[in-house]
């Protein structure tokens, strides 16, 4: 239940999708005192380490998946990323408050390295299918296509933004290798694109009357 509690998210306006780091700190209070956790983990506190893995595990995973790694490759990238952190935790002291950014950047680098090794297997966006065929698509198929036909860049952005807990703009930027200043606009653009595609198939996506 702990997972879904986050999935659905009560409407925590202002902190839902891409809060600034300040907003996040304020909203989470002392719960995610990353510096404190990192210090404790560096001193060998397993629980603090586990808390960091809880906190950033999904961000690291999402980064690997956003770059198109298969689940198996993604798991490798995640492992390597955490291994790097374990190795370097002592030396990262001035970055403890930006651990999410460091992890996202490292996950991205490791993902690209794995991809560069020629192992990329994730298919790109599905080629748009024959419009005539789409007329006969089931509701499920239509919904699936909305996701598949979203431009790859937007899928990537949304993939990271949907991470739980919500990443900061800095973390998103580090994961995707984009300027921080562009994240807000990109997010709005991609959500609008997604919304428009959903609206197009609205007639066929009435809630099922269960």
């Amino acid at each position, binding site marked *: 239940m702990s*997972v879904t509690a986050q999935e659905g998210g009560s409407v925590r306006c202002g902190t839902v999708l891409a809060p600034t780091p300040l907003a996040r700190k304020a909203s989470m209070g002392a719960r995610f005192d990353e510096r404190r956790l990192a210090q404790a983990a560096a001193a060998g506190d397993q629980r603090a380490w586990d808390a960091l893995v809880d906190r950033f595990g999904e961000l690291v995973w999402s980064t690997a998946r956003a770059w198109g790694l298969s689940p198996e490759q993604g798991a490798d990238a995640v492992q390597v990323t955490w291994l790097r952190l374990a190795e370097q935790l002592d030396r990262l002291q001035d970055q403890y408050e930006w651990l999410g950014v460091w992890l996202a950047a490292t996950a991205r680098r490791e993902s690209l390295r794995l991809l560069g090794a020629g192992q990329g297997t994730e298919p790109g966006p599905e080629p748009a299918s024959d419009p005539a065929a789409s007329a006969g698509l089931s509701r499920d198929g239509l919904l699936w296509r909305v996701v598949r036909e979203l431009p790859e860049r937007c899928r990537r952005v949304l993939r990271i933004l949907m991470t739980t807990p919500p990443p900061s703009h800095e973390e998103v930027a580090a994961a995707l290798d984009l300027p921080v200043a562009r994240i807000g606009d990109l997010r709005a653009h991609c959500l609008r694109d997604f919304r428009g595609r959903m609206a197009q198939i609205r007639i066929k996506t009435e809630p099922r009357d269960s």
Partner: protein
Amino acid sequence: MEREVRKTVSVVFSDVAGSTTLAEQLDPESLRRAMTRYFEVARQVHERHGGVVEKFIGDAVLAVFGVPRAREDDALRAVRAAAELREALSALNADLEQELEVSLAVRTGVNTGLVLAGDGRDGQAFVGGDTVNVAARLERAAPAGQVLVGSSTYRLVADAIRAEPVPAFRVRGRLEPVHAYRLLQVTSPAGTPSRRSAPSLVGRTGELATLQAALDRVVSRRTCQLVTVLGDPGVGKSRLLEEFAGRARAQAVVLHGQCPPYGGAPTAAVVGQLVEQLAAVAPGQLRDSLADPAAVSIDPQGVFGGLRLLFEALAAERPVVVIVDDLHWAEPDLLDLLDYLHAFASGVRLLLLIAAREQLLDSLPGRSGGFGGITMALQPLPAAQAAELAARLTRPAGLDAGMAPLIAAWAEGNPLFVKEQVRHLVAEDYRHRPGADLPVPPAVEALVVAQLDRLPPDQRTALELASVLGRSFDWPAVAAVAPDRLRPRVGALLLALARRGLIRVADNRHGQDGFMFSHRLLRDAAYRAIPKQERAVLHARAAERLAGPALDALGGADEAVAHHLGQAYRHLAQLAGDEPPPRAPAVLLRRRT
């Protein structure tokens, strides 16, 4: 539409021990007759306790408790059925020995866990998965004639049974050894919920004073007074009445009736309990008229009048307090009886004290305001008191003192949730990670899901729609995401849900009818029951409604719109193969030397 849901059920797996040998001893026709009789007995026993016989596999019987609807006492029902099957078998064996010169011995395994099940809306329920496998392994490990109870079941029923642990054993395909208990006896009487030993009462001084004032008025005015205590499951109704009963015994005779959640006639059960206690305290001449409490029948004329005369006679000597707990399980005739006593008992010092969940109001047609008399809505404990309760429980349990406020906040003031969480964390040897959500103990999960499963389908749907909007929501928003068929009735459905206590009227500042889920766990459970694809569609609709017609409305400022669109995308993306990370991603043990 049929949809599969993950839900927690209890399963009973029984098999005839040595049936192969039997097959060699008996001619096929006799064997078939014996087995048919056995299957029939098994079916009756399971159904009596609310189980569904899912299938017969060879000579084995698989019964499931919790489909199509979950009940909070499914685990205890399953164990009771297993115990009763054992007893029923000895009666059957007496017959079989006479007729066929054979007797059957049955091994049984009981287990509780998550299964993937049809939601039963069209009457179908298919159950499979690891939970059933483990029950089958428990059955195989049980000696003939014995019942082995898995540890997840045991934790839910530990207060209601006697059992002894058996050595843990391994089964193929599972890393963890299976822990099990051999059932000796079910100790809590059939048809009563298992109430766990109550911790010391925290707070409730105002409520106790109200009850005491009612008793004082009854005594001073020689009158009959009815007090109804309403509240959510676990909020502490029984505990409050127990505390009050203890105090009231100094000045009154206290009789205690308890509606059983199932098992035939609740009215007869309650009347029987009351009459039995009456007989024990009644003066001589009364006692004679109560010679046979078991013979009390539910003849309105006879029993209603008779009980009134009994109470009046007793109340002439001493004030009488009659407590009836869990009245929401009652049938109309018991409600009529209480109404009758309240209306007609005159000139007597009689305090009728009723406890029930708010769903009682739904079962009172024509009594929309509840009964007459005083109605007290028992609220969750204030945060400080909940923390105090948690602290009292965590200390002896050896939990970190820092956990108490976390547990209190998680429970949102529900004392039972506090208590169950402490037990669960201790049993799980829980190690808290800063920032992590607390787990949901199985007993609490069962209670929450049972509340949802009891709802009529349209109310259930309305609650699920609301859960997409969040903990707080308003009527127009639910209407906006509702399917056409339900839209005109959304207001009525929400009011019905409020009457049941699942949601509360929250906020009318903006002229909207605002509501709020009574507990976060209710919202989470309702949300989780929606298939991901439906969640996506509903979130998208919620975003449409919030954003209005202009596509440009999403300027990055409207976080609520962004939230819903984001959730819609998230669920669709997961369906399209972008699954969430494994729950425990790559936790490296980091040992320092």
